[in-house]
């Protein structure tokens, strides 16, 4: 077991290196660089920039150095904990990301809970009542969540919430609470606003989870020991609870691996539409304006999170399910 853990952790290293190279390449691929985007944008609004200043900035930020050197500088910096400098905000990346990370984690966490809470009962019902109208109906609802494009749903819900409930448009709280210390009113305002992104992002995750849970549970229910238990006269619910459900619970842990990237990236579009102060809009803007270090470092961080998440879920699965350990492999 220990050998397995060590092996997996060591394997993470080449993965991360590969990811960093890919991230850097991708960010550099679009033509131009931050300064050119910046100038172009000012031009578009009718402002002009002093060419002297541009030349100064170009040299200062090292945008005129060869790419390999820029990459090595960045990679070395990250190992030291220096995630680079954001051109757009004129400050270190860590300061820019700061607060937003906290809110992102909260929103993601609540969304995952929501997804579990919805998918679990639906998945079980679907598996035990296969091909019934209940099965179809609930699956329909789940698929509906995935079928409606997030951005459209977010915009419509937001508008309706504003007209019907008077919830202010966009953001995670009413404007007057921004920057103020936490109070009961602020919490209420956050709850009032956050149900929209949670519902929008959550509904698109439930369908996948329902389907996977249903498939796993069906597999278990076909197994010989269930038939034996039923034949021996155990009431159906007890049968369900005592054996296959335990297997299905494993599934929650293992599914984090596929749920996590979905939640994080699915959240991005919704966050843009709803103008949430999370990391999604920040990342997208950074990519658009080629704010190299902000985008690159943050992408690396996200990738790191996901790799670690998958690793943890794999290890947890191995710990929970003795069959995997004994057979020496991870069945999926």
């Amino acid at each position, binding site marked *: 077991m220990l050998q397995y853990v060590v092996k997996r952790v060591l394997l993470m290293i080449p993965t991360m290196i590969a990811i960093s190279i890919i991230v850097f390449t991708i960010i550099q691929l*679009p033509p131009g660089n931050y300064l050119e985007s910046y100038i172009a944008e000012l031009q578009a609004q009718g402002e002009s920039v002093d060419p002297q200043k541009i030349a100064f900035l170009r040299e200062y930020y090292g945008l005129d150095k060869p790419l390999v050197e820029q990459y090595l500088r960045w990679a070395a910096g990250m190992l030291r904990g220096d995630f680079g400098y954001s051109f757009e905000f004129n400050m270190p990346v860590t300061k820019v990301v700061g607060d937003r990370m906290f809110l992102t984690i909260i929103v993601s966490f609540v969304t995952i809970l929501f997804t579990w809470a919805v998918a679990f009962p639906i998945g079980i019902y679907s598996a035990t009542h296969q091909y019934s109208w209940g099965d179809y109906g609930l699956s329909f609802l789940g698929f509906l969540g995935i079928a409606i494009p997030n951005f459209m749903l977010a915009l419509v819900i937001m508008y309706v919430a504003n007209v019907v409930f008077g919830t202010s448009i966009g953001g995670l709280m009413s404007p007057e609470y921004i920057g103020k210390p936490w109070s009961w009113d602020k919490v209420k305002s956050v709850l009032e606003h956050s149900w929209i992104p949670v519902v929008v992002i959550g509904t698109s995750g439930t369908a996948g989870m329902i389907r996977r849970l249903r498939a796993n549970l069906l597999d278990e229910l076909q197994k010989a020991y269930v038939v034996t238990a039923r034949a021996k006269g155990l009431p159906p619910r007890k049968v369900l609870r005592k054996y296959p459900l335990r297997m299905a619970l494993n599934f929650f842990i293992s599914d984090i691996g596929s749920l996590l990237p979905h939640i994080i990236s699915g959240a991005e579009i919704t966050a843009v539409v709803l103008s949430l102060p999370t990391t999604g809009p920040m990342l997208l803007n950074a990519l658009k304006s080629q704010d190299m270090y902000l985008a690159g470092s943050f992408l690396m961080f996200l990738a790191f999170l996901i790799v670690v998440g998958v690793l943890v879920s794999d290890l947890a699965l191995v710990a929970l399910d003795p069959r995997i350990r004994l057979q020496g492999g991870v069945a999926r």
Partner: protein
Amino acid sequence: MSTIELPAPAARDADHFVSTDPFDPASATQLTPEQERFYLASQWKLMWWKFKLHRVAVVSGIVLLLMYGSTLVTEILAPYNLQTRNTDFIYASPQRVHLFHDQHFVGPFVYAQKKALDMDTLRREYTEDRSQPHPLRFFCYGDPYRFWGMIDMSVHVVCPAPGSTLFLLGTDRLGRDVLSRILYGARISLTIGLLGIAISFALGLVIGGLAGYYGGWVDMTVQRIIEVIRSFPELPLWMALSAVLPVTWSPILIYFGITAILAMLDWTGLARAVRSKLLALREEDYTTAARLMGAKPSRIIGRHLLPGFMSHLIASATLSIPGMILGETALSFLGIGLRPPITSWGVLLNEAQNINVVALYPWLMLPVVPVIVVILAFNFFGDGLRDAADPYR
């Protein structure tokens, strides 16, 4: 074979029943006609029977067939051409089809729309002019087009009365019929899914197959690559890759570029499934037998191993198509996918993505309906396929 004499029944009652009928080996395996059909049926027949059990899947399959079929004859189905615009009817609301005018049955018709300009709110207001019905014409001559780029025709399934308009789903800001645009948009959106799946299927099959069959360091490398790709948040990767597409490319090339990008991030799921199945199946006896008999790896994989789980693969592939279609809409939303003048559902939805539409012209959001229908249909269809894929359960 001569009959065998059984010993005489014992005097007392036997504990168990023994038949005194002569023993005929051939009699044990008498099958009813249904059973015979079942055991003699081919794999695909079995799958079809199991599939039919899933009623919703069958319905979905029919729906999909109809939708894809419609892309072949879009020009005939749509009341107007893609480019047709009517600047007198900008942001017109959908026209209702009536059957009765003044209590008389007239057949399907619409009323003309009267336009009024509200100069205070700068809004165009349309009201029905109930004085005269404008009956719809069926199988009539309307906007001319080139059918499949070759034949000049102008037949349409339904057209407005001469001099009148037929905006069943309203018009947009240039006076273009929304229904026609949705029908034309289907061509791009539906085929992106298919093309993308084809590419991703091929990639997944080849890479997963190699990893599963050879194992060892090939397997290790492929697994790492898969892990790297899966660790990426999709959206930023799409953004970055789309930014790479040279903007000087023609719309068609960009379209292919987008499908390739969507596919490149999608093959990992399939590759993992292929790999794990192959890892299991290659230990089977028939694989060993084939190998001992001198078959090449490609023949073993292609002829012996793959058919064993091809059905699973097809089911998985089908379930990935909705992801592609949604991916296209997401890319359009971010402004990096397809753009006007190409018309796809994603482009239409992106144009509807603003507060004016939600508050004032909600019919412009209708392209979301076919998106939902297609995705639901694919999901149910794929579910049915997957359930049917293992008929021996």
